[in-house]
């Protein structure tokens, strides 16, 4: 039984009287795709932001590969091998697609002073091309990221999260606002990435927040359901689908 990549224990975050995250605990195993679902306002993004150091949790612990990272900020976490995408699209509009991907990886090798006056692609050209091909965005590789369609920018956003060979990638609603045909492509892409990077010496685990139920059920190995800041259930897609409480939470009250 291998050690969990990510172990969140009893995470709490309140905004005044609103308990956005009220005692959330879960584990993510190496190479696993872990889904997080729940109605709007259930605290999924707040939980993400707390884990990722974007906001400070009130209490609880976050342990990454055995290291306590509860108080770490986004910069430290990125250096430790955590990648993420944001709910609102965040690519660098004025840079080309290629440059976007380069920025995502360049800070993870060598030192800052070593990069001063170094060649523009930091020797990462091949890696960038490989990812461009995997995401099938070669035709727009040199275009300004801001001029592309929403769906294409989403793909770049996801690709950027993977550039630095992370051990853990957190994806916040990768399918939001994307047309149905692209949803299927994204699912296949993520499965492919999980296949190629999910094993071996440095397996990559995914945590995915999504509202698209078909997407989540088809993609994830295990799913956690959050309601009103608490964990309602954790289990395989089949278990979750059969869980009466989950159905109530979504369809009832």
């Amino acid at each position, binding site marked *: 039984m291998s050690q969990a990549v990510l172990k969140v224990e009893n995470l709490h975050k309140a905004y005044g009287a609103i308990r956005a995250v009220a005692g959330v605990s879960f584990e993510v195993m190496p190479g696993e795709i872990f889904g997080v679902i729940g109605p709007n306002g259930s605290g999924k993004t707040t939980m993400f932001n707390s884990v990722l150091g974007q906001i400070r949790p009130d209490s609880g612990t976050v342990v990454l590969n055995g290291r306590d990272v509860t108080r770490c900020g986004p910069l430290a976490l990125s250096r430790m091998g955590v990648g993420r995408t944001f709910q609102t699209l965040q690519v660098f509009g*004025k840079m080309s697609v290629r440059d976007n991907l380069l920025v995502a990886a*360049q800070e993870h090798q060598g030192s800052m002073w070593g990069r001063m006056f170094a060649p*523009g692609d930091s020797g990462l050209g091949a890696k960038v091309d490989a990812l461009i091909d995997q995401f099938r965005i070669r035709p727009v590789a040199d275009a300004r990221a801001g001029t592309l369609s929403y769906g294409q920018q989403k793909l770049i956003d996801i690709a950027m999260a993977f550039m630095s060979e992370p051990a853990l990638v957190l994806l916040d609603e990768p399918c939001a606002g994307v047309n149905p045909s692209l949803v299927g492509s994204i699912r296949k892409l993520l499965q492919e990435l999980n296949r190629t990077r999910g094993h071996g010496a440095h397996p990559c685990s995914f945590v995915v927040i999504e509202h698209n139920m078909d997407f989540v059920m088809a993609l994830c190995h295990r799913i956690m359901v959050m309601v009103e800041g608490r964990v309602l259930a954790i289990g395989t897609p089949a278990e979750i689908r059969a869980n009466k409480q989950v159905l109530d939470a979504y369809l009832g009250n």
Partner: protein
Amino acid sequence: MKKSTLFLLALAAVGLLVLPLYLKGYGVYLLSYWLVFVVATMGLNLTVGYAGQKSLGHAAFFGIGAYTVAIAMKAGISFWFGLPAAALICFVVGLILGFPALRVQTIYLAFATLGFNTAVWLLMRNEEWLTGGTFGINNIARPQLGGLSLDGNLAYYYFVLAVALLMALLLWGLLRSPWGKAFTALRDNPIRAESLGVDTRSYTLLSFAIGAVYAGIAGSLFASLVQFIEPAPFTVGASIMMYLMVVVGGPGYFFGPMLGAAVGVLLPEWLRFAQAWYLFVFGAAVVLLMIWLPDGLLSMPDRLRAKRLARQASALRAASVGVPGPRA
């Protein structure tokens, strides 16, 4: 780089080398003056245009550079020691100024840099024992390079040109390297940048420090150019003018400072024929320019390209309407 840009650059290089030979003393002096401001605004362009910070205190570094050289030379120290000393002092002070940038945002950062400029200017004005106060420091000599005297306007011009070219090449190398992308990421989306591993704190501090070094070196050149240093050119008003030069030229465009400094330094000279009205024309020109090209003069090609693309896209759309397609 495009062939056309390369050609223009070659033309400009030839012009810069040859033109002064045909100008009178004052013309050469003016070109040197322009080049000094090009170096200073290149630094501000890095801080404000490429790294997206707010800095309304750039003239303070300009002044620190100028006074360092002036005081050093008055004390008998060589210019060649004063120049790097000015650069080093500005680097350190620039780093220190970057710290407020880590804590306060946009408008308040602008105010903090204004406060900094004010403090430095007050120091220059009041510390007579060091700076000569309002009387300033005069009779600043021009340096000697080996046995060659740089005293004449023409000789000094070529020296300033050489330094400016060197600083420009360094900046070009820096911006082409991964640092350039890191600065752009810092400017356009610091939160995303941080989550990708970009050390936004360090890059912010360095954007101020490197910008300050450019201003400091420009100030050193300035001191020996005008040969008399007093606090007046280093006020908040001067910082605001430098900011104007960067924005008018085009923030984030490499050649923006060349154009911007030309507008700030040379345009008022050319407008002198309008006599009493020349500053009015200048001010009005700046307003009109901003309304027409808010991203600066060098954004013109980009705007034309965007307009052309938009026209093509709408033409395509118009052409595709009415073409029978498969049933949805």
